[in-house]
């Protein structure tokens, strides 16, 4: 799974700690999601989408889909 979390966060000038507070998770967890070490559950993915006010598919994409788009 790929995600645009780092880019979206940078666009809003949020630190990992800012995003962690908005999502009620730890900063290490935000880092784990950003670096692709952990794929969030559906509830957390929906929460992330709500925080960025974007549909989930604009934040997360399957590896094959992302490779095909490239």
């Amino acid at each position, binding site marked *: 799974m790929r995600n645009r979390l780092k880019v979206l966060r940078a666009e809003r000038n949020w630190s990992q700690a800012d995003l*962690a*507070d908005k999502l*009620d*998770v*730890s900063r*290490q*967890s935000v*880092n*784990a*999601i950003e670096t692709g*070490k*952990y794929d*969030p*559950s559906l509830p*957390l993915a929906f929460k992330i989408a709500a925080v960025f006010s974007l549909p989930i598919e604009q934040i997360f994409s399957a590896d094959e889909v992302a490779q095909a788009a490239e």
Partner: protein
Amino acid sequence: MSVLPVSQNKRRALVRSLLIMFGGILVAFALAAHAWDVEVRGPMLAALVVFCVLAVLEFATFDEIAKRAHYIAWYWGSLLGFICIALMQVAFAFDGSPFVAVLQTLMQWFGAADASESFAAGMLFGPLLMAAGFFIVRGVDWLRSR
């Protein structure tokens, strides 16, 4: 109105601080009992109960990623502990094994134990190895995720 912080991260930090504090109190009681031979069983048991309740509360404040890391560490860490116990059992079972000499040295240090003492020692040693495995796996995971 709740006295606990609204933010999950602040709540987690508060519970963790209390957990460390009570962990310190437990160690202090154990050291005091050892150094000055004072009777602390009652207060120590009370502190242990509070520590256990706080540990459960801390787990409840974990996010899904921290919970998953704990599940993985308990699985692989305790498995590692089990494997160590099994290997030691096998090693001690063979006559002439170098481990038998280690066992004999330990028996000289601590004195020969009867069946109930051996059982109690096994009950303590097994979970100790599993907990050690947990901390090793959790530590490696923590270092990798920094």
